[in-house]
């Protein structure tokens, strides 16, 4: 319960030392009990890691279905392990089903994930989606993961409030500001922001304003080429390229609920569901939470306009789940058979439809979810981008920096700090 760093921390108290010693002893004892493998009866047991809390139960039913369809592979679901620690111990899960963002970068780039390029499933993937994986993390010559589910995030808006005040869905920044003014005059918070949870700012205002203005993949490509010296004088930098997006973030932040600084994600879902604000910068994962409060709520989605050219409209996507098999797995064949099972169109498409997500294959059907249809066009046109906060390596606390700006820091020193962090990271890695 006490998340003390498991480190050689000096000044360790006698009590924590004893607890540690006890845990170590228990660990040895347990290791002695564990049976090696379980292949004696011709059944291979694989561990399957899925930690997305909303869908653990869903995958349990899929596992049960898989067990019914064949008898050679048994799947044991794991959703609590610490992934880094598992890799350090050289005992990662046989099949991972995980968010494909900065958290997998190290596993991919150090070659810890096996090549799945020869699987037929790899050939079915929508070519528009492949670059998203490559931008996040890549090991040359390998298909390290197969994308399973894509979530698209944009502005969630209260359709009834928009109708009531005669506001059309804005497609330009000026329209958006005008809409905010209208709501503010009516005494309704245009946006409900939740600055207490840093990730909500990073994936919301921060990523949306940048994605709507900056060519994100191109920016990071040029930034990586810059090497270990990124500052005001270099041809590309956070200070230069993110500056106008951050100014818009500050301006839009001024239209947020007054108590945004002390509100968290749960507060936001509740308030938006109660109709306390017209717009809410959250992804589809919030829809189920909102429905818990107000099941009949009329919610729509539109991409946040950050420029005055409707052609710039884009939605933020992330590869919410991707499947991968570690090099260290000793049961790759069995893991592959479960991967193929999960990738069957009727299973994968049902999963995505049930969980407010978009598919990843060439033949994925369009969404029928009324809250998501507003984004289908952008998905089809590949008018999407990965959030900048997901590409910036996790060593840099970018969500905290975004929170500083949201809470009133001037953007310049924060962006300068980002440049400095980026340079130092490039130097040491």
């Amino acid at each position, binding site marked *: 319960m006490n998340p003390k760093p498991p480190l050689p921390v000096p000044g360790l108290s006698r009590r924590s030392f004893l607890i540690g010693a006890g845990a170590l002893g228990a660990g040895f004892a347990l290791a002695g009990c564990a049976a090696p493998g379980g292949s004696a009866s011709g059944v291979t047991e694989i561990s399957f890691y899925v930690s997305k809390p909303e869908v653990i139960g869903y995958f349990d039913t899929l596992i049960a279905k898989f067990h019914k369809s064949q008898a050679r592979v048994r799947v044991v679901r794991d959703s609590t392990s610490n992934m880094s620690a598992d890799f350090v111990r050289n005992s990662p899960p046989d099949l991972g089903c995980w968010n494909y963002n900065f958290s997998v970068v190290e596993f991919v780039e150090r070659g810890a994930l096996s090549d799945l390029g020869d699987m037929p499933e790899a050939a079915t993937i929508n070519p528009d989606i492949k670059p998203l994986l490559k931008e996040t993390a890549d090991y040359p010559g390998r298909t390290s993961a197969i994308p399973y589910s894509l979530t698209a995030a944009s502005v969630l808006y209260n359709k009834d409030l928009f109708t009531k005040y005669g506001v059309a869905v804005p497609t330009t920044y000026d329209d958006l500001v005008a809409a905010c003014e209208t709501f503010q005059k009516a005494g309704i918070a245009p946006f409900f922001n939740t600055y207490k949870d840093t990730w909500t700012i990073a994936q919301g205002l921060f990523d949306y304003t940048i994605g709507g203005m900056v060519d994100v993949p191109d920016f990071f490509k040029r930034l990586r080429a810059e090497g270990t010296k990124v500052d005001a004088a270099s041809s590309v930098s956070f200070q230069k390229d993110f500056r106008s997006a951050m100014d818009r973030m500050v301006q839009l932040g001024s239209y947020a609920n007054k108590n945004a600084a002390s509100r968290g994600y749960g507060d936001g879902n509740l308030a938006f569901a109660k109709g306390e604000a017209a717009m809410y910068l959250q992804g589809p994962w919030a829809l189920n939470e909102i429905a818990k409060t107000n099941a009949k709520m009329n919610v729509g989605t539109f991409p946040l306009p950050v420029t005055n050219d409707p052609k710039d409209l884009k939605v933020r996507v992330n590869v919410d789940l991707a499947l991968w098999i570690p090099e260290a797995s000793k049961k790759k064949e069995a893991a592959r058979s479960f991967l193929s099972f999960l990738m069957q169109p009727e299973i994968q498409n049902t999963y995505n439809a049930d969980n407010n997500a978009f598919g990843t294959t060439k033949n994925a059907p369009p969404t029928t979810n009324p809250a998501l249809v507003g984004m289908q066009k952008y998905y089809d046109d590949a008018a999407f981008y990965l959030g900048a906060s997901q590409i910036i390596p*996790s060593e840099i606390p970018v969500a905290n920096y975004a929170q500083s700006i949201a809470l009133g820091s001037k953007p310049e020193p924060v962006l300068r700090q980002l440049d400095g962090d980026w340079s130092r990271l490039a130097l040491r890695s």
Partner: protein
Amino acid sequence: MTLLDRNENDMAVVTSARTGAKKRTSHRRVDKTFYAFLLPGLVLFTLAITLPAVMGIFYSFTNSVGFGEFSFTGFINYIALFSDPSIRSAYGFTIGFALVTVAVVNAVAFLLAIGLTARIRAKVAMRAVFVLPMVVSGIVIAYAFNFLFSNSIPAAANALGFGPLESSLLANPNWAWVAIVIVTAWQAIPSTILIYIAGILAIPSDVYEAAALDGASAGRQLRSITVPLTAGYILINVIIGFKNFLNSYDIIVGLTNGGPGTSTTSIAMSIFQGFTNGDYAYQMANATIFFLIAIVIALLQLRTTRGRASL
């Protein structure tokens, strides 16, 4: 062990005084059983503390992420560390926070201990109440206070029309640390009180009687008797407290998670982020520096407490 050693030595001195000839041999010969007692602890300490520490120092000279391929990078991590403003600010915050908290905790605990050792009603029950926070886990305390700071206090301030507290203290980059000091102190004061109560009760009552006969006021008794005679306890509380507050982690995670921005990120938090963020080698370098600082403090502690009224 020190107690045993001392007895051994005392005995040796006594025996040598009696029988001068046996002098050296007798106190050198230690029963092997003592080493057997030491062994399990030594093995566990080596496996769980020393070995990981040495490995951590080794990795601080690489670009490892904890697993997979890595290469040696020499002192690059240390060079990047010293030029990193977020690391510098973590040290600045942690040390400043530890100093303030030590002062607050000891001042409050000392006064409470005086109150709790005075002739008051329901003394035992009062002591129990004051010691209660000690048994609650830090993360639980932090989440409870998080709710108070984010919701209850702003609501109360709003109702009373008190401007400065209408927005959450935790969301203010300049003052969030105050909230952390308050909550940390709330948790740390009980154990400090216990040590002070022990110290104050150890002062013989005849000293106070003599002082009272000489006409010393209560204030004078506090200044000239209580404080000097508990000096050893004050020193121990200050050093132990300072060392604990330097390692602050759970309360900060539960209250601000290092924010707003990075204004309340402690050293322990930044080191731990090395595990979750793939910054393993870099934060190992940070941990190595932190380790050296802790050694200096430990040596200081050993020097200052030796010979004094040590517990």
